[in-house]
């Protein structure tokens, strides 16, 4: 996983002291969460959708070997190349190998969290290859030499003034801070990059086993450019990102866009089914699919298997009281928020990520928001339990204390958690409470009194459950 210079508590303190984050995080959370709630209300029966989406994901993961075999057979039949990467190093070797063979000078990328996992940009740049991120948010953080801080909105921690400065520097002229001027500049600049790039690297929202397809979901259109303009297209796929047929794709795409931004569908859903065919005069001549394990298989057959159902919508980030205060970078890994706190220790090991399961108030808002019903807060408890059972007891007790200390020493985290956990209402009503809660909108320093919990407080829970688990 990513190397991070600061230890967890230092990263949290840094985030809490950041005035830009303090403004940006609630804005982003409220906007995205509000969109999701509206979309759910429009459906009217969101629980049924969640249940079916969950069943589809669980069935697919339980039969992952079969569906992956079907996928790669079809990719090859369609004229594509398949590469299995057991580790991050394997993926790097495969992709740098293709770049070398193609004598590539430049690569354009559309958003891929898997590519962040293996740090492919750095490895390609070390070979002297120019790598350009084309998602506007990713381009911004690439210029700032940073990493994404949100699954869906990677650059929420940058202000328009910062964007203006960075873009002006690239442009060699002074740009205004108007969004339209800044995006127009990005369009012009990135279009040049697209037209001269040798290789396009994309992620993969979902692969479809029955047809050997890679499906990409985007709003900007950069994923379409990445997979259409350069002669070579490499798609990087986490091995669990697959559905059996196009029929199942319907459900997961419908849930992904509604849960991520509240859109009924994204502007572009693009099915890449093969390299260009004989009658075509556009599209890549070569298609490579890189399927990455990188620790995922170790999650199979464990209590955490459902974490692999994740469709990377970011809904759990948008309801999390801890994420709201510390943002994505404080988590330290590629994936942030509740899903990051669950996944990162699984992919990267407890030794390095011992504290992450404690970056949570266990309020359960994440589990309620998850469109594929991953019991995120249960899995966080499971982690705490496992850390103890793996003989990390003395240290973990210290951590348990720290975890408790984290929530109680940051009152608005505590308050939000209590509100979420004890509202005693269903999925929508619970979120309704958040949007009306004045404590959520105010700065955490405004809130010093701990509220009276309605039923059972985190403290009480901790006394009964948390302590019990540590004995």
């Amino acid at each position, binding site marked *: 996983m990513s190397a991070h210079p600061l230890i967890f508590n230092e990263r949290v303190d840094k985030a809490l002291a950041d005035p830009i984050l303090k403004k940006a995080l609630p804005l982003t959370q409220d*906007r995205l969460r509000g969109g999701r709630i509206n979309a759910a209300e429009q459906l009217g*029966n969101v629980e*049924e*959708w969640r249940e079916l989406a969950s069943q589809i994901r669980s069935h697919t993961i*339980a*039969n992952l*070997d*079969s569906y992956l*075999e079907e996928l790669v057979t079809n990719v090859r039949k369609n004229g594509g190349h398949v590469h*299995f990467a*057991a580790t991050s190093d394997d993926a790097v070797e495969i992709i740098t190998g293709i770049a070398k063979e193609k004598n590539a000078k430049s690569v354009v990328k559309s958003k891929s969290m898997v590519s962040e996992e293996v740090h492919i940009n750095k490895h390609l740049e070390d070979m002297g290859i120019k790598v350009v991120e*084309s998602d*506007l*948010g990713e381009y*911004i953080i690439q210029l700032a030499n940073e990493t994404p801080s949100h699954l869906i909105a990677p650059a929420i921690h940058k202000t328009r003034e910062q964007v203006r400065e960075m873009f002006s520097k690239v442009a060699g002229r002074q740009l205004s801070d108007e*969004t*339209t001027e800044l*995006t*127009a500049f*990005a*369009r012009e600049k*990135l*279009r040049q990059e697209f*037209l001269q790039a040798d290789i396009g690297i994309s992620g993969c929202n979902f692969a479809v086993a029955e*047809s050997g397809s890679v499906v990409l979901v985007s*709003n*900007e*259109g*950069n994923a*379409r*450019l990445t*997979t*259409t303009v350069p002669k070579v297209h490499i798609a990087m796929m986490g*091995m669990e990102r697959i559905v*059996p*047929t*196009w*029929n199942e*794709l*319907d459900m997961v*795409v*419908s849930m992904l866009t509604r849960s991520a931004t509240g859109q*009924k*569908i994204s*502007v*572009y859903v*693009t*099915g890449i*089914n*093969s*390299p260009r*065919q004989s*009658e075509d005069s*556009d*599209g890549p001549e070569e298609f490579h699919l890189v399927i990455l*394990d990188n620790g995922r*298989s*170790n999650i*199979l*057959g464990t209590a955490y298997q459902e974490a692999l159902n994740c469709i990377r919508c970011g809904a759990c980030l948008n309801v999390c009281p801890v994420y709201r205060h510390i943002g994505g970078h404080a988590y330290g890994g590629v994936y942030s928020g509740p899903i990051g706190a669950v996944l990162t220790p699984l992919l990267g090991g407890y030794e390095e990520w011992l504290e992450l399961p404690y970056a949570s108030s266990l309020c359960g808002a994440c589990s309620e928001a998850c469109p594929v019903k991953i019991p995120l807060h249960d899995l966080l408890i499971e982690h705490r339990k496992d850390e103890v059972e793996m003989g990390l007891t003395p240290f973990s007790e210290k951590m348990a204390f720290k975890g408790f200390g984290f929530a109680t020493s940051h009152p608005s985290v505590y308050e939000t958690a209590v509100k979420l956990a004890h509202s005693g209402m269903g999925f929508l009503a619970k979120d309704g409470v958040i949007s009306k809660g004045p404590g959520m909108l105010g700065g955490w320093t405004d809130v010093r009194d701990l509220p009276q919990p309605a039923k059972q407080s985190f403290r009480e829970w901790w006394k009964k459950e948390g302590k019990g688990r540590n004995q």
Partner: protein
Amino acid sequence: MDLKKQEDFLNNIASKLGRPRRSGVEPPKWESKPYLHLYEGKSHEELIEDFITNLGQLNTKVDRISRDQFAASLGNVIQDFEVRSTVYWDDEALDSLCLSDVLEKNQIDAFRWDPNENEEEMKQRTAHVDLGIVFADLGLAETGTVVLFNGGGRGRLVSLLPPKFLCILSEKDIVPRLTQAVQKVHERVSEGLPACINFITGPSRTGDIEMDLAFGVHGPGKVHVILLKDE
């Protein structure tokens, strides 16, 4: 070597799942159909109205016209979008509307996406025209989506590189939602899918600068749909 890697990879998954390797698994018939109530009982006319309303909410105007009004309708788009140049699909459905004649009459610098032409030149030209014109295969009422089965004269770049996009669609090809569209793709798998299928819903958008909505950052920022009445 590659095959061994594959076998190791898949065997490892089976072993971690604690069972023998599986092959040829097919998904169960899912009993639940949570999307049914979104369109059940709606007439085709209502679906068409939904399609138009939903695109309207995404800054996209839909002209619902009969075929003999096509020239006038296209003339309006040319004016509204200030079009001087265009690229269009080599497609019988567009030819049947006499598209090239109408463009010529409007003195538009127009060219056809012709797979026999020089590829690099077409790409460069497409990158510099004002408007791309295609004829969609399907429309989705619930979302206002148009579905394009690309391939051959139906180039992918036509709906992508120009800053403005005109999509023509027959009313009869409007279906309730994504469910029906993916079913059609599913049915075509055995005969082979085109290299790329696009589902496009309104103009390219981003909220990456302070969550402030902006159009056209990569794909077309302006989209117009001409919906042909069934006759």
